[in-house]
């Protein structure tokens, strides 16, 4: 193994098919260690399948999924560096959260019991109740606690907040930032609640229908699009030449989201035209980009069909 040079996560032409469905379609990706990544996409986009391949819990139809340059499938040495708690994670029926943590302490070398205890307290998790009697939120809390206290080199969180209320989710995000600051490691947060986690992410990977739609640093995404609102004619004149992500109109009023980083002069020009410029949140950007890519795809498909 060549740890120093191998990326934390690497996908090479990864495809996973179920019968006639391509859950992942020829994906290639390389992510360096020590960052918080957002794996974003709609439900059924292939997020869980992707993480399943990366953690050796499943195996690809073709291509490779590598962790620090090694195939994790049935490879204990590599698996020991990963933690992946599924969104629908199953636990032994008769286990209590306390027993689940005890098991985790056996397998994760960096397990921090103090962290697990304090998180359990924050989430008000009944430690001795049987897991099958826990609520959906409490069940999620068990997964979150294991994922965090394991302090694995690469941790995957699969929609970790299901059933957690706003307060509990905030606790999760706060504690995650705090712990990451002191113990930097690679964290992959899979989510469709993008707004909530946007500021935590350093890098964003958006997948849709088993393909990568977006793979960029969160910071370079921020402010990379702008919504131009005002008189439809003036808006059209202003946005001429830019990639349009979205169009809305109301009578003579138009609001167009374009992919552009406007200079001060351009901003002034917009102001002189009476156009309003407004920032596009990451969530909107992801949604717009995904939808724009989809309609492009449909367009080419229908064009091909015409030929």
């Amino acid at each position, binding site marked *: 193994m060549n740890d120093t040079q191998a990326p934390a996560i690497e996908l090479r032409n990864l495809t996973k098919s179920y019968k006639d469905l391509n859950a992942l379609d020829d994906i290639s990706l390389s992510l360096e260690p020590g960052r918080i990544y957002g794996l974003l996409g709609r439900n059924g986009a292939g997020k869980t399948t992707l993480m399943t391949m990366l953690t050796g819990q499943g195996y690809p139809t073709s291509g490779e999924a590598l962790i620090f340059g090694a195939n994790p499938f049935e490879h*204990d040495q590599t*698996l020991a560096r990963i933690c992946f708690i599924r969104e629908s994670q*199953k*636990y032994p*029926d008769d*286990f209590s959260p306390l027993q689940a943590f005890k098991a985790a302490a056996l*397998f994760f070398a960096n397990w921090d019991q103090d962290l697990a205890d304090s998180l359990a307290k924050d989430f008000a998790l009944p430690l001795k109740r049987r897991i099958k009697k826990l609520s959906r939120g409490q069940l999620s809390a068990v997964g979150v606690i294991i994922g965090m206290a394991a302090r694995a080199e690469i941790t995957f969180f699969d929609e970790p907040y299901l059933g957690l209320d706003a307060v509990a989710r905030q606790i999760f995000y706060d504690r995650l930032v705090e712990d990451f600051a002191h113990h930097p490691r690679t964290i992959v947060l899979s989510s469709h609640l993008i707004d909530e986690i946007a500021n935590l992410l350093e890098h964003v990977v958006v997948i849709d229908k088993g393909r990568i739609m977006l793979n960029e640093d969160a910071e370079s995404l921020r402010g990379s699009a702008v919504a131009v609102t005002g008189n439809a004619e003036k808006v059209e004149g202003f946005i001429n030449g830019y990639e349009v992500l979205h169009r809305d109109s109301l009578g003579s009023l138009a609001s167009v989201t374009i992919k552009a980083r406007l200079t001060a002069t351009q901003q002034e020009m917009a102001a002189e035209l009476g156009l309003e410029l407004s920032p596009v949140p990451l969530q909107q950007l992801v949604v717009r980009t995904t939808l724009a890519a989809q309609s492009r795809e449909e367009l080419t498909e229908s064009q091909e069909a015409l030929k």
Partner: protein
Amino acid sequence: MSRVMNVARMQLINKWTFLGIPMVILVGSTALTIAIWAMIPKGGILVSGSSQAVVWYFLALGIQSLTLTFPFSQAMSVSRKTFYLGTLGLFATIALAYAVLYYVLGLIETATGGWGMGGQLFALGWISENNAGVQILFYFVIMVLLFMIGFWCATIYLRWKATGMLVLGIGVALLTLAWVGLMSMNHWWIPFWTWVGSATVLGLALSLGVLCVLLAGGSYLTLRRATA
């Protein structure tokens, strides 16, 4: 290796399921049988198979050790192979302990004249005639066999769900039919029963042992590509 041991430890975190219940079954069924014997009029040898309940419990253990713990072991970043080795190793050890316990209880039974009532619970005639090694081996193989059947069926269900069970059921039925047909057509029944009648406990234990190994191999191959 330490991860294999940790799998065994994980299986034992909840001691009640895998150690407590079989103990309760053993003590409970024995006590109940002796109580019944004490109530019925004396006369002749009293034989009961109730103590064998624990042996059957190994079937349940095989199923539970997979369905309850395998998906969780995946979240614990344990490879299927490690899970398999740790689980099988643990339950083989438990089976061995029970086999020895049965042998010892058989000795006590004989020494106390069938618990003072001429009963037979553990020292079953045909088996207890053999030496210690053969007796222990026999009990051990039976328990491992049942464990493996449960474990493999659970693995097949995990991997192929109801379809797998259906195919398995039909497969077993067809094989049995083919075997019965073959035996009947060739008039092999009489030699077969003669062979069974003359089989020694050791011979039976060894041939069932081979079956155990086959089941263990099949289980591993099934589990290797199973997803939780």
